[in-house]
């Protein structure tokens, strides 16, 4: 089903029928409500002049709709046209599209493993860095850390991938073999990918955590210190708990970025789609690290050669849709968590900074953080 069809046959009729139906049949109440909603209390002249701005907003919504509908519309052909069963797709362990096997289970497991690893490594460091910037650093160091974070966020994903091959993979391989003894592990796999991803999502989590900490009223710090708490006691017992919702938002958005990261992971994870990242064994060291693959990596590698209309091509869109769903859920989760915070970050925006994907993720974060940071007085600590 192509996009035009989806639009002309589903979206537009639905909107027209709902709004039009309510307007015509809903009686004066609905008529008035709709009119009121559309005019928002502005005069006709004002409304006409508003059109360009409203149009921009519509385009933003349309952009999302187009992406979601396009990916979604193509995602189901794996099931409808190629007759792969839903269960087979999500529980199958073999990804060999040329042989008609598209089992995505290990890809999903790989994605989760890499993501969790990256987040687990990155979160403590990021929070520590945020605490450093807001509570410990003197002003010069605080100003120094901002470009440092932005440069970390700005290094292109591909450069991270190449750095990873040259620096991290040998390090992981060396460390693993030093610890375990025999040469069992090539260094490519979830550990290397997770380490590099941890660095890549660090700016995201850090800058959102900085916002969350900076949003706390100065009174909290003063109250705690005035009771004779040390700075560390204040941080641990008061500031971190009070900003936990903001920090958690950052962690979720960092997760989103880790899930969507492609190129760096493709270079490092070993991209074997038919492996679990970790295999448990009966002999020392009781586990074996294996090259694995992730959803993004598989999309990236298969898209080049997949012929449109083939099972492989359709399966790529299904994978993309799964990825879209995951990031959608993460965004929803971050909104929910952010809305529950005791202290809202900086301005009245409903949630913290946004973003997840390639360089874009942190990009938004860091840039937006920079903008807000420059608009705020230096936080006192």
């Amino acid at each position: 089903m192509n996009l035009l069809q989806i639009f002309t046959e589903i979206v537009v009729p639905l909107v027209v029928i709902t709004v039009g139906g309510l307007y015509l049949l809903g009686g004066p109440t609905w008529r008035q409500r709709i009119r009121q909603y559309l005019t928002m209390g502005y005069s006709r002249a004002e409304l006409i002049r508003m059109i360009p701005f409203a149009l921009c907003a519509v385009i933003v919504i349309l952009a999302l709709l187009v992406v979601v509908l396009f990916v979604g519309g193509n995602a189901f052909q794996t099931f409808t046209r190629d007759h792969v069963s839903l269960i087979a797709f999500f529980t199958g362990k073999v990804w060999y599209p040329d042989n008609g096997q598209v089992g995505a289970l290990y890809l999903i497991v790989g994605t989760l493993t890499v993501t969790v690893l990256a987040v687990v490594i990155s979160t403590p460091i990021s929070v520590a860095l945020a605490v450093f910037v807001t509570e410990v650093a003197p002003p010069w160091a605080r100003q120094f850390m901002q470009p440092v974070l932005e440069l970390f966020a700005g290094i292109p994903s591909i450069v991270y991938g190449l750095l990873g091959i040259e620096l991290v993979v040998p390090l992981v391989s060396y460390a693993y073999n030093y610890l375990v003894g025999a040469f069992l592990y090539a260094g490519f796999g979830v550990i290397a990918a997770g380490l590099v991803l941890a660095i890549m999502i660090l700016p995201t989590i850090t800058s959102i955590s900085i916002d969350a900490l900076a949003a706390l009223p100065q009174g909290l710090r003063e109250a705690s210190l005035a009771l004779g708490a040390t700075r560390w006691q204040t941080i641990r017992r008061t500031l971190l708990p009070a900003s936990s919702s903001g920090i958690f938002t950052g962690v979720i958005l960092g997760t989103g970025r880790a899930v969507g990261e492609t190129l760096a992971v493709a270079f490092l994870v070993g991209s074997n789609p038919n492996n679990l990242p970790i295999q448990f064994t009966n002999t020392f060291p009781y586990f074996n690290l294996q090259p694995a693959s992730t959803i993004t990596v598989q999309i990236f590698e298969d898209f080049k050669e997949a012929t449109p209309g083939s099972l492989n091509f359709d399966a790529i869109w299904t994978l993309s849709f799964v990825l879209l769903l995951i990031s959608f859920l993460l965004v929803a989760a971050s909104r929910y968590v952010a809305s529950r915070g005791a202290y809202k970050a900086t301005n009245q925006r409903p949630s913290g900074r946004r973003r997840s994907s390639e360089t874009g993720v942190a990009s938004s974060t860091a840039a937006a953080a920079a903008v807000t940071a420059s608009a705020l007085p230096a936080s006192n600590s």
Partner: protein
Amino acid sequence: MALQPEIAREGSRERAILGPDTVNSQYIARIDGAVKMKTVELNVYYGSNHAIKNVSLEIPEKQVTALMGPSGCGKSTFLRALNRMHDLTPGARVTGSVLLGDEDIYAPKEDVVHLRQRVGMVFQRPNPFPRSIFENVSYGLRVQGGYNASQMRETVEQSLRSAALWDEVKDRLNQSALGLSGGQQQRLCIARALAVSPEVLLMDEPCSALDPIATLKIEELIEQLKQQYTIAIVTHNLQQAARVSQYTGFFLTGNLIEYAPTQQIFSRPQDQRTEDFITGRFG
């Protein structure tokens, strides 16, 4: 980019450069009776802004000392100097000395953390931690460590009773402190400060964010607390100063203009500016 002036070297006790409006800078405010705290030629600077100019003042033990003056006169700044809260402000600089008993709290060896346990503070706006009532009050004890659960419970109850809040919250000690009303929150903050048994309690306009009824309750509370604690309270409310305090100091543009027993300062002020302020000609 915020302006961040250099941080002064410790121990540089140079004399303040006195401006034309600092005629009273040599004024030494003495009291009769036991002195709990005193400042000697205290100066506070925010960057290039000279906020407190050479103030020497004595605070009587187990009495209430009120500091009043128009907005921006430096009374809050002065109060914050008494438990070194300025350490937290980038660019703030303090010269002169503050004595607690015989001990200079700005001495290089002073343990700031211990000092703040001895000199508690209640702030202008109630600032409970976003945690339960019990955790708020027991916070200082937890931070100090060394109390078991029953001691902690006992202290929390005692402090809440002292702050006249016990009856209102005893059934919901585990609920969030943010759910309390403004007045209750402020009394909670007082209870929280009392829990660590400070010797001196500093109150920075504790009623300015409260309604008249809550204000009255706090004032009654202060009346009771002075049996046990030395209290210094900043207020811009003349009536409040008159009602609760035994000594009153009047600040203007960073100078201590006049300091005397409260009755005296309200009935026969020595300085024309004090009189103008009290009679409502400015401020």
